C-alpha cells in the first residue's frame, strides 16, 4: 500500500518534449513508473523515450487510460495545462512548474475540488512510492520501500530527510513534496489523513517551514484524528520577518507564520519536533517503539 500513487498508476507527461519534461520522463521510466503518454500541442504523433506524444490530454487519456499527469510546461502555459488535465478527467495532477500567480490558485483550488480530482503542487518535487512509482523530479535512488510516510513543503530538504531515514534503515511508504506556494493543491492534512488510512504507513515525518498556518492546522488534525506517530521538522527558525525565503509561501508576515508557533503547535499535539534533520530517524524509531 501507499498513498496517491502506486505500481498501477498510469502517468502522462504534459510538456514531455521540453528540456525538463523529456529528461524526467526518462528518469521516471528508468525508475519503473508506468509512463503511458506525453502531451505537447502540435507535437502529436512523435515520440519521447519511446512514449507516444499527443496534441491534447483528452487524446492521451483516451489512448492510454492514464489517471495521473505530471506537468512540466513553462509558466505561461501551466494554468491552461492544469485545467486541460482536470477537464479530461485526470484524477491526480502533479505540477512541478514554479510561479503560478496566487490569484490563479484561488480559482484552480476550488475548481479542482469540485471535479473530485487532486493536484499536488504547484512548485513541488512530486511524489514517489519507493520501488513502485515516481512522479516528478525526486531522485529515486535515495528512497527505499518501508513503513514511513514523508510529507514536506520543500524539495531538496525532503531528499535530505529521506536520505537520513534510508541511511538508518527506515524505508518509506510514500514521500511527497506539496510545494512552497501560499496555496497548494494538496496540504498537510490531506496527506496525514491518507497516511493515517494507509495500511503500510506506520509513522509519518512532516517537514514544515515558516509562513502560513498549515502546520498549525496539521497539528490540530493530528491531535484529533491520528493514532499513528508523527515526527516534525520546521525550518526557518532563523529567518527574518517580512522576507520571502525563496518559496513564495515561506514568509513571516504580520508576525504570523513563525517557526516558534508551528513548533509549539506540533509539540502540544504530541509531535516530537527535530531541531535538525539528522535527529529525525532517532525520533521516528523512538515513536515506533512506544
Amino acid at each position, binding site marked *: 500500500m501507499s498513498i496517491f500513487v502506486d505500481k498501477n498508476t498510469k502517468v502522462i507527461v504534459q510538456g514531455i518534449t521540453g528540456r525538463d519534461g523529456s529528461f524526467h520522463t526518462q528518469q521516471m521510466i528508468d525508475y519503473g513508473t508506468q509512463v503511458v503518454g506525453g502531451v505537447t500541442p502540435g507535437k502529436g504523433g512523435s515520440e519521447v523515450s519511446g512514449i507516444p506524444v499527443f496534441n491534447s490530454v483528452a487524446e492521451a487519456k483516451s489512448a492510454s487510460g492514464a489517471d495521473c499527469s505530471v506537468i512540466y510546461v513553462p509558466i505561461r502555459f501551466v494554468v491552461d495545462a492544469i485545467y486541460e488535465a482536470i477537464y479530461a478527467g485526470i484524477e491526480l495532477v502533479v505540477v512541478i512548474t514554479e510561479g503560478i*500567480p496566487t490569484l490563479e490558485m484561488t480559482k484552480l483550488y476550488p475548481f479542482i475540488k469540485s471535479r473530485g480530482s487532486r493536484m499536488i503542487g504547484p512548485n513541488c518535487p512530486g511524489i514517489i512510492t519507493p520501488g513502485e512509482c515516481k512522479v516528478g*523530479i525526486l531522485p529515486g535512488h535515495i528512497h527505499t520501500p518501508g513503513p514511513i510516510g514523508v510529507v514536506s513543503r520543500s524539495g*531538496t530538504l525532503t531528499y535530505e530527510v529521506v536520505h537520513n531515514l534510508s541511511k538508518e534503515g527506515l524505508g518509506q511508504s510514500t514521500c511527497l513534496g506539496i510545494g512552497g*506556494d501560499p496555496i497548494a493543491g494538496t496540504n498537510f492534512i490531506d496527506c496525514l489523513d491518507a497516511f493515517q488510512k494507509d495500511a503500510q504507513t506506520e509513522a509519518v515525518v512532516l517537514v514544515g517551514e515558516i509562513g502560513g498556518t498549515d502546520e498549525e492546522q496539521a497539528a490540530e488534525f493530528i491531535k484529533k484524528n491520528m493514532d499513528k506517530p508523527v515526527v516534525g521538522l520546521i525550518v*526557518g527558525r532563523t529567518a527574518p520577518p517580512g522576507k*520571502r525565503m*525563496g518559496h*513564495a509561501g515561506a514568509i513571516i508576515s504580520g508576525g504570523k507564520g513563525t517557526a516558534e508557533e508551528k513548533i509549539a503547535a506540533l509539540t502540544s499535539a504530541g509531535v516530537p519536533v527535530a531541531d535538525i534533520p539528522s535527529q529525525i530517524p532517532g525520533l521516528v524509531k523512538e515513536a515506533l517503539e512506544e
Partner: protein
Amino acid sequence: MKIHEYQAKEIFVSFGVTIPRGKMVTTVQEAVAIAEEFGYPVAVKSQVLVGGRGKAGGIKLAKNKNEAEQHAESILGMDIKGLTVERLLIEEGVDIAQEFYVGVIVDRTTRKPTFMVSAEGGVEIEEVARQTPERIKKLSIDPFSGIFDFQARELASFLTDDFQLAGRIADFIKNLYRSFTACDASLAEINPLVVTKDGQVIALDAKINLDDNGLYRHQDHEQLRDKSEEGPSAADARQMGLSYIPLEGNIACVVNGAGLAMCTMDLIKYYGGEPANFLDIGGSSSPAKVTTAMKIVRAQGNADALLFNIFGGITRCDDVANGIKEAFAGKAPELPIVCRLTGTNEEKAKEIMASINIPTLTDMDQAVQKVVAVAKGG
C-alpha cells in the same frame, strides 16, 4: 514586489479609486514648485519601501512655502530603517472627517481574496487584530464572480450607518477589488481611507504588494521596481533566478533549494554560528548560477567563511563544482570554504574540487560544524 505609495496610487486611480491630487518629485526645487501650484497645506511624504515612515519623521505637513522647502530638504536624503529617501510625494491637504482601514489580501486559510475593513483607520491593522479583533470585519470573495454589490455594501455598512456614505464606500471597495485583481496583487491596502468634511471618499495612503509570481504577465510592472532600494546584489540574484537575502552573521552559505537553505541557516545557528545570508541557487544546475552566487557573497563582505551545501537531485554536483572552479579561476579563495556535495554526480564533483584543493564532505552536520569552527578561526 513592493512598490511606492505614489505608484500604488497611480494604479488605483486608473481603476477609479479616488486619491488626493499629488505628484512625485526628487528635488527640493520641484517639491516647492508643486506645493506652490497646489496651494497649502500640502503633505510632504517620503517614498521608501518600508513601513513606519510617519513615526520616523518621513511625513510632514507644510502650511506655507517656507515649511514646504524645510520639510522637503529634511526628508530628502533622510535614512529610514536603512533606506535613503530619494523621492517625495507632494500631496494636496485633505479635510478629514473620518478615517477607516480597507484592505484586501489573498488569504492562505480560505484560499480566497479576502477583505478586511475596520473603523480603526490610520493605525496598524495587526495591532487592531490583536487587541480588538471584533473591530475588524473579514469577507472572502469568490474569485470567479468577483465582489458582489451586496458584499461591498456589507463591508461598507460595517464602517458607517450613513447609507449614502456607505454607498460611496461600497463603490470605492469595488474599485479597490478591481485594482487588486487586475494587477495580480498579493495585498492592496488603504490606510487610512478618509471621508472628507464634504463627504468625499479618498485613499489618503495606499499600499500595493505585487505577487512576484504574477509579474511575468505584467511586463509594465517591471518599471515600477525601485532598483536603488534593492541593491546591486539583489538585482544580480533576481536576474540569475537566485533567491538572496543578506543577514547580519559571518557564515555565508550557498544552497540548492529554499527549504534546505533555511535548514542550513538553522543548522549554522544550532551549531553556534551566525548565517550571513539566505542564498538559494534553485533546482536546475548551471555553473553561472554558482559564479553569480560567489559574486554576491563577496560583495556582501561580512562573511568569514563560506559553506556550499548541495544535495544533488536535479542539481548536478559537478555543475556546482565547475561553478566554484570558474569563480576562483585559478586564484586561491579569499575566504575559507567548506563544501558539502552529495547526490547526483557526487564523485565527479569531488574530483573537480580536489583539482582546486577544496576538500568535500558528504554529511550536512559535519559540514556545518566545520564551517562554524572555521569562521571562529578554528
